[in-house]
């Protein structure tokens, strides 16, 4: 029988290995490093609580699921998303974007669902079926969300006519995107 100490050591080893990519994925989704830390911490606590069962399975997949659902919960609690092209003085939902990497600013132009799909598909490298399972949506929705997200990012990355800022202006949205 594995002792609690051994289980804890196993978990710590897993957590140390998985945390960097989870932190970055969380940061790409929420755009704020502090919130990303909180999300990963919350997800890892949930993993720890089920570690004795998860250790033989896919703890990373469960950690990703916890991360995404925790972010959605936080997002819903804090209000609807309002993503704007111009960086606001204060963050409208997650945080302000003005001190984050360009790629986060790009991702911020996407609705939450598309952003999650894009990050999980193109950063975590998960197959569409896994992303669908992770987010609790159909594979078709994953495909359409990824396609729309990619198209919007393409438009921002390679604006045809007009300045990039104009292209981003087209991305201004308000309302519920979850």
């Amino acid at each position, binding site marked *: 029988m594995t002792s609690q100490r051994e289980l804890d050591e196993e978990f710590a080893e897993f957590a140390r290995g998985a945390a960097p990519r989870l*932190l*970055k994925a969380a940061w*790409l989704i929420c755009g704020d490093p502090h919130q990303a830390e909180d999300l990963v*911490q919350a997800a890892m606590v949930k993993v720890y609580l089920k570690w004795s069962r998860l250790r033989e399975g896919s703890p990373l997949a469960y950690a990703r699921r916890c991360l995404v659902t925790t972010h959605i919960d936080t997002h819903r609690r804090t209000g609807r998303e309002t993503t704007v092209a111009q960086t606001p003085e204060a963050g409208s939902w997650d945080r302000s974007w003005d001190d984050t*990497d360009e790629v986060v600013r790009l991702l911020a132009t996407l609705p939450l669902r598309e952003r999650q799909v894009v990050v999980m598909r193109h950063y975590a490298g998960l197959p569409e079926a896994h992303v669908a399972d992770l987010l609790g949506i159909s594979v078709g929705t994953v495909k359409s969300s990824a396609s729309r997200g990619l198209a919007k*990012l393409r438009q921002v*990355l390679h604006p045809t006519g007009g300045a990039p800022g104009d292209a981003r202006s087209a991305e201004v949205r308000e309302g519920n995107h979850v």
Partner: protein
Amino acid sequence: MSDTHELDELLQRATAPHMHFDPAAAIATGRRVRRRRRIAAAAGALAAVTAVGVALTAAVPGSAPLLPAGPTQGRAVSPKPTGSAGPSPTERCFPSDTERGTPWASGSAEGSQRGGRVVVEATVREGCGEDVAGMGEVNGDAQVTVMFKDAPTTAQWVVADAAVLFLPKGLQPCGYSFGTDLPAPTTLPQANGWDLVIQPVPSELLRKAAETGTVDLCRGSTTVTRGLKQIGWNGPGTKWAADHQSSGTK
């Protein structure tokens, strides 16, 4: 390069700000959550998870700390009030995960129902509205947690996996209502001058002991207390449990 590959590369290449994650903090928080869940379950009278042999049972503050039965004890009740009366006395024992109370007595002895040791930890929690006891299991050891609302001034005891008695120095148990041929107890002197006595209880007597058990206490050969009831009996704990069981909420 396709847009997809360009995006892949963009995301991979993006420089994330420095972020920190501490596995030890996650473990510590997880332990607190686990412990709190166990004790919160205990507050409802009973909770037993048996499928994987891991049991969280407890009981508190009612008349049957373990394996209770009977018309008022046959179902678990939520420790969380849904009314507007504010937190229950038991919930006030847990203002936050970080507050653990003042250690009052602790010790361990062989004799757990699960084959391991009985590990007892008693604390004084000023936020508690009543004395609370709970039990969980860690690696075959029974973990008995008792939270006193105030430091005891008279003998206290509860049955949770084993009989656990907190006795002023000089007192010893000299008779239990639920059986006579019991294994030898272990007496653990405490720094506060009290004795912690852990009395193993045969499994066939455990239910009876938890439901109706009383103890006689002696000083030397003289019986000084007869039929001492367990923590919560006929006290605020019982009332609390009755309130919750009769209405389902509070």
